[in-house]
């Protein structure tokens, strides 16, 4: 096996880990995607059973962790002088991925969620959880919203309606902040912008740094509208214009279209970025809350390859046993 193949294989395994973490997405496949001995990581030709088997194999190296799921490493003092881009930004160009074994199965602390997860995967509790505020690791829902969240959680094993299936499992975009605890991300920094390209489901964000205003509030987007600026070594990004259709994990942690994020991407050292986000939604949460995720630098020669999620997606058919109507383009 060449270095290149080996590199790709590692990427496939990493991607499998990441995507398998979403195993109850039941993302079965649109057919085999291997040809000429290549395996493409983005569609799966096997059944859910096979997916679980793969996960079990991948989990062999995982260290069981008793009790609470591990939290990301807290931000450190960062007084160093990082290299700069030609327009003077701290230079964070390159490939990054989250280092906390956070799955998007459930981001909340709590054994109920994790027992379910463990039951499916045999993965033990070797997953991280990102909520640092409030300290109990739970989303501070308003009372009505807590009921709704519990309902969605109860539904997630056997959804009775299509809208109770995780939107990502149906092939839709992760939205924010979920994409930031998924997987491989490439950062580009043309003058006056930061661009983040996520491998999973070929998602991207373009963050202008020029002080321009958000777009009109009637425009709702899966990935929102991001405007940023640098405060020292921290990229601060204000995100609005988010729609109400995305979830924060598979089990139905949700928000409304009033979601507002303030992201702080702190360049801690050449190989680490700490992502801390304050999440605010006055329609759904009792108070703002925070996630923390550590991102680490990947091999500079990493190549993102095609991740065609929708194209092979049979989640609705598998979960509900019914074919969706013919989809049609309307442009």
């Amino acid at each position: 096996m060449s270095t290149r193949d080996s590199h790709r294989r590692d990427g496939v395994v990493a991607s499998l880990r990441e995507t398998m973490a979403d195993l109850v997405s039941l993302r079965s496949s649109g057919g085999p995607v291997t040809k000429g001995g290549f395996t493409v990581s983005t569609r799966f030709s096997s059944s859910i059973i096979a997916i679980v088997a793969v996960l079990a194999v991948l989990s062999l190296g995982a260290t069981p962790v008793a009790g609470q799921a591990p939290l990301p490493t807290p931000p450190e003092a960062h007084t160093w002088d990082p290299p700069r881009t030609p327009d003077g930004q701290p230079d964070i160009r390159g490939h990054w991925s989250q280092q906390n074994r956070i799955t998007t199965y459930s981001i909340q602390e709590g054994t109920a969620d994790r027992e379910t997860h463990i039951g499916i995967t045999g993965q033990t509790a070797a997953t991280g959880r990102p909520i640092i505020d409030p300290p109990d690791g739970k989303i501070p829902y308003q009372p009505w919203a807590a009921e709704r969240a519990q309902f969605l959680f109860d539904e997630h094993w056997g959804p009775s309606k299509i809208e109770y299936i995780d939107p990502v499992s149906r092939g839709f975009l992760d939205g924010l902040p979920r994409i930031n605890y998924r997987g491989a991300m490439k950062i580009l920094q043309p003058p006056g912008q930061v661009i983040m390209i996520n491998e999973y489901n070929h998602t991207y964000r373009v963050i202008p740094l020029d002080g321009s205003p958000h777009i009109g509030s009637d425009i709702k987007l899966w990935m929102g509208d991001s405007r940023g600026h640098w405060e020292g070594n921290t990229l601060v990004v204000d995100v609005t214009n988010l729609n109400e259709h995305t979830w924060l994990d598979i089990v139905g942690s949700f928000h409304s279209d009033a979601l507002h994020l303030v992201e702080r991407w702190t360049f801690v050292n050449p190989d680490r970025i700490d992502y801390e986000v304050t999440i605010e939604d006055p329609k759904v949460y009792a108070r703002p809350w925070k996630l923390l995720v550590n991102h680490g630098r990947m091999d500079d020669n990493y190549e993102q390859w095609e991740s065609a999620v929708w194209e092979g997606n049979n989640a609705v058919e598998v979960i509900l046993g019914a074919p969706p109507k013919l989809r049609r383009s309307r442009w």
Partner: protein
Amino acid sequence: MKRLVSGWTTGLTVLVAASALVPAAQAQTVPRGADGKPNFSGFWQVMSSAAWNIQDHHADVNVPAGQGVVEGNEIPYQPWALAQKQENFENRETADPNGQCYLPGVPRIMYMPFPFQIVQTPTYTAILFEYVHAVRHIFMDGTPHPEGHIDWWMGDSRGHWDGDTLVVDVTHFDERTWFDQAGNFHSDALHLVERYSFVDADTIRYEVTVEDSKVFTRPWTMSLLFYRHKEENFRLLEYECYAFDDLFRAVE
């Protein structure tokens, strides 16, 4: 380009030769990167009806008329393939893969009626599309296509410079995409050579040579223009083809 022997006489000769080949206005006014190459970064979109039909066509319901973008207007199909194309055309309302909201493939996505953003660096260029948030990665670091064949909706793109023209070789295609809504199609043997060059600072000429020995009798070429978006605070929005409200609960 061959590495040049050092020496001022050689350099002078090259300078004179280059200035004779490139119109002075173009050489000076197009955006260039730190590497001296033309920089195509920015927001672009066609003004063309090629996405409906890449050949000459008159208007139809919800289809704007258009002059074709195929050189000579003829697509050199093999006989069986011409019959297939005609069948595709008859069935286009249900058979067009874009109707399933799949990634549209290359070159079709380049001339769909949606803007895209080019982000260019010396060794890598991204093209970000509003339509189904597609991304093209164009690797320009001299690496070859991966071994294959690999079925990718958007192919594998490797770029290099031919003077001031960005040349992108694209291979590893899935056979399920079309060139347009009129049923023009290809196989998984599709191989493209794209050429991007500035006409002026706000216009890119896009030429693509199409080769597919399973479907066509010879290579053929399309030529289009990309126009720069200059609106204030312009950004790509989203066209999530498969996620509109009436499809959201679309189980019968």
